[in-house]
Structures are given as C-alpha cells and as structure tokens.
C-alpha cells in the first residue's frame, strides 16, 4: 500500500476514534450534534435549540477537553518513546527507563505530603513540580553519566538511569509509607487518569507539546543517523553529544509534562513507535508524526474503554493501555513471523 494511502487511513481512523471518544459515555451523543456544538462554540454562534444546556456542557466542558488531553498526552508519550528508542538504540528504552516518572512521583509525593502550593499557580503546582522533578532526574542521570563515561555511551545511560530510577522509587515508597494519609491520593495519581481535565489543562499541554514537536521535527535526520550508532553518526557529521542532550531533555519534557498532568501511564511510549515502524518503515520524518497520531488515538481509545467498561466506575487508564496494548502489540509485531 502506498504511504499516502496509509497516512490518509491513519488520519481518518484517528478522527473516527476522537469523535467516538466524545460521543460515547453515560449519554450517547450523535456525531452530527457534537460537530454542531463544537462549531457553535468555536465560531461563537448560537447553538440549535434542540440541544439542551446539559448536553452542550457534557460535550464542551467535560468530554472534549478530556479526549483532547488524552490525545495530547498519548502523542507526547509516543513521541518521547520514539526519541528514546532511537537515540539509545534500544527498542525497550523509554523516558521511564531514565527515571522521569520516578522523579515526578517523588516531586508529587512531596507536594501532597507538605501541602505545598505556589500562590499564583494553585492547582497547577502539582503538575509543575511533577514536570520539574522529572526533568531534574533526567538531568542528573545524564550529567552523572557524562562524568562516568565521557562519550555518554547508551549502555551507561540506560544502566545508570535504571539504577537511579530504582533508587528514587525507593524514596517514593518511603514517602508513601511515612505518610499514610496521602497514600490513597498518591496511588490514585500514579494510576493515571484523564478525569476532570479542563480547557486550561488542554491549552497548557498543547503549548508545551507543540513547542517540543516543532524542535523535534528539526532533528529527524539526526535520529535516523543515530540509529546506526554513535560512531557512524559522528563520522557522518552529527554533533552527537549536543544532539543527544537536546533530544533527551526534549523527551523528558514530553513525558514529564504528560506524567505530571495525568499520572503514570506506561506502554504507549513503547508500542507506538514499534507499530508505526512496522507499517511505515523507520524514517523518522514519518515515524515521529505518525507515532504522535497513533499514540494520541490509542490513548483516546483506551480512555474510552476505561470510562465505559464498568458502569458507574472508571478503570485506571494505565492498566487499560497495557491490557489492550500488550496483545495488540504482540499481534502487530509477530503476525508475519513464521514458526521456526
């Protein structure tokens, strides 16, 4: 199948899933009515009298921001996973490997225990501290790795990241054990959820992610070259160390923001790039944007399942991503392999 047709099918599938994500819930809303509400709101036009205020509020204030937040976060995790796998030349690498979620968990745990709040930011203190702690963790991992290994070798980064991540996880466990009253909130946050996401959340996430994507798109050639190894990348003319720093920080910012706003949601960063490479090839000019599209769409689908699978209850979306993702990933990855 031609690449253009594959891209068209991907975009169309993504739009269908997004619409379904908004349409399905406790009340089913027909796609045409959704479009009427969205265009009415965007164009500040009066919305048809057939649609009552409650329905408009469900779509515009609750479901749409939730679906968009899920799409943005899924896309960010997928982009981050793509970068990590390519620069570390490890198909199992992700920002989680380098301790982003562990760092963010410590930060969030401390905020919850101390009740610390930045006056101007209020409720956004938690995501901001989560993001900053995730970034600081990756910064420390890279800086210390650079001290141990001047060339910042991939194996050293991954090994040190994992050691550091385990250490920080132990700190989080200690925080949780010593402060039992905040335990449920911390556990709930760690499970990941898109409930109660507002337009402000969506706007902040969109600004951060679009900014990161614009930088990332400039480095797709370098990402391609670095998959062949650092020595070859240097020989071809890539400033490997500098590019690696930029991409690692960018990747940490993407995951850190996602984790900070929604909690720990794994698996998408691992599967999205693999599935996309399988269908579209390895060139990052396609892999990066299509992974973002796939990750976002997949997250919206998982969130939809998390919302509707059990009536009057919501499942942790992180569990759903893995429950759906693992068999789907296995199917896509192994379907063409012959039994040996």
């Amino acid at each position: 199948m031609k690449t253009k047709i594959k891209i068209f099918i991907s975009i169309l599938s993504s739009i269908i899933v997004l619409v379904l994500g908004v349409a399905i819930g406790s009340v089913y809303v027909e796609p045409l009515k959704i479009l009427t509400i969205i265009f009415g709101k965007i164009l500040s036009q009066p919305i048809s009298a057939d649609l009552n205020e409650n329905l408009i509020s469900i779509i515009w204030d609750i479901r749409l921001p939730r679906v968009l937040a899920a799409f943005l976060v899924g896309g960010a995790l997928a982009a981050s996973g793509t970068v990590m796998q390519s620069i570390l030349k490890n198909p199992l690498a992700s920002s989680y490997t380098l301790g982003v979620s562990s760092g963010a968990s410590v930060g969030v745990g401390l905020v919850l225990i101390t009740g610390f709040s930045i006056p101007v930011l209020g409720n956004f203190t938690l995501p901001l501290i989560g993001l900053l702690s995730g970034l600081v963790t990756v910064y420390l991992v890279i800086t210390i790795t650079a001290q141990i290994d001047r060339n910042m070798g991939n194996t050293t980064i991954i090994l040190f990241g994992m050691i550091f991540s385990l250490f920080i996880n132990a700190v989080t466990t200690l925080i949780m054990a010593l402060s039992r009253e905040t335990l449920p909130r911390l556990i709930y946050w760690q499970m990941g959820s898109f409930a109660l996401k507002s337009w402000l959340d969506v706007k902040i996430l969109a600004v951060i992610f679009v900014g990161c994507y614009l930088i990332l798109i400039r480095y797709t050639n370098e990402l391609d070259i670095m998959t062949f190894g650092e020595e070859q990348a240097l020989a071809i003319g890539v400033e490997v160390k500098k590019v690696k720093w930029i991409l690692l920080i960018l990747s940490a910012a993407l995951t850190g923001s996602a984790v900070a706003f929604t909690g720990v949601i794994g698996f998408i960063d691992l599967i999205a790039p693999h599935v996309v490479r399988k269908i579209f090839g390895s060139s990052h000019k396609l892999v990066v944007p299509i992974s973002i599209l796939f990750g976002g769409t997949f997250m919206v689908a998982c969130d939809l399942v998390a919302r509707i699978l059990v009536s009057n209850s919501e499942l942790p979306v992180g569990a759903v991503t893995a429950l759906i993702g693992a068999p789907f990933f296995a199917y896509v990855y192994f379907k063409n392999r012959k039994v040996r």
Partner: protein
Amino acid sequence: MIEVKNVSAGYSGIDVIENISLKLEVGLNLSIVGPNGCGKSTLLKAIAGIIPIKGDVLIDGKSIKTMKRAEIAKKIAVMSQMSAIYFSYTVFETVLLGRYVAMKDNFLKEASQQDKAYVEKCLEAVGMLEYKDRQIDCLSGGELQRVFLARTLAQEPEIILLDEPTNHLDLKCQHELILYLKNWSKDHKHSVIGVFHDINHAMELADHLLVLEKGHIKALGKAEEIIKSGLLNDVYEMDIKKYMLNSLKKWEFVN
C-alpha cells in the same frame, strides 16, 4: 594533506595506540596492517576524531579539535566495520543519510533533487542501484557493505577511512571494491586509508604500508621495501612468504 602528530588514544583511560605520527598527501593511499589488537581500528577512529585523542590530527593544516563534526565530515568519511541494524531503512534512505551535511545547509533539512541524484550515482557506482527500494535488513553481508560504501561516497569526502572493508564480501566483490577505491583516488584529489587483515588487499590498494605492533608504528613506508625487509614475519610471528607460496602450490594442478 592529513597529518597525525604524536597521537595517543584508547578506551576507558587505557591507551591502545601511543605517539603515532604520520603524514599523508592527498592523492596517496595508505594501508594499515598488523596483528589483532595492535590498534589499527583505534588509529582510524583517532584520525576521524571519533574518539578522544592526545596529540593532534591536522587536515590541510587545521586541527580537528577546532573543527565542527560537519566540517570534518566534509573532508573525511569513515566506512566502519558492519554493526547490528536496529531499525531497518531502505537502501536509498540509508545512502541518503550520507548527504546529511549537505542537507543540513538546507532550512527544511530536506533532500534536494541534486542530493537524490547524487545518491543514485553512488548506488550505481557500487552496483546497488537496482536494490534502492529494498530494506537493508533483507540484504546479504556483502550487499550491505556496498550500501555502506555508497553512503560513505555520498558524503563527497576527500579522504575515506576503511575499517576492514572486505569483510563479508566474496572474492569478486573484494577485488571490485578495492579496484573501485583505487580508481576513486586516482585523480590525486582523494585518498584512502584502509585497515586490512589480508596483506594482498593492503598492497592492492596502496603503495604505502603502515605496520602497527602493540599500539606503536613498527614500519611506515613503501610496501615493497617493508615486505622485502621481512619485518612482517616478525610482527605476525610467521613466515608469510612461505605461507603464501604454500597456498599458491594448492593451485598448481589448475591449468
């Protein structure tokens, strides 16, 4: 001209090569030989500035320590020993990566029609044009080696450094590769520095040999003189001429 001045380099703080100095005029080829672990590949990496060095390497009088990677890549290209392929690209995409520095100057970092045409020219030169849409993980070792050579050529360098380029190639391909590189450097504007295990290949490519032993230069000069001196026998701890003649005897039954 490329000048290596008192270069020492290695890994994890241990020098594999020590105080290596040599000069090579552009237009001349040099083959590096020596037993396993003597530092041949390390010397190539040091010349290309891929690993940190003590001492200096000057390209046309300019230290590589002061040059950006892109600047070095315009002068020197390295065809490394084959490594594992983690993500598969098409042959064309792989060779196009050699145009990185050329594409970098373009705002969108996109390949121009000239870049694409040049890639096709390089693929044609190594006999891989008809494979351009194949995935590289479906190629044989020899085909892959030729793709990497095409990518090296796509950089349009003045000097090519080769690390055991004949690995994975059948006899015909080995001969063709060396012949191609010899022709490539014939215009006196290009040079090839190659690391070889096979002395015949080393001599086929270059008139000059650099013999390394335990990280030091054992000999540097005209290939014929070095071979006549019998020095290679000491370095490899065997009678090379006897070995070659014995090999040749096995062919005597052929008309």
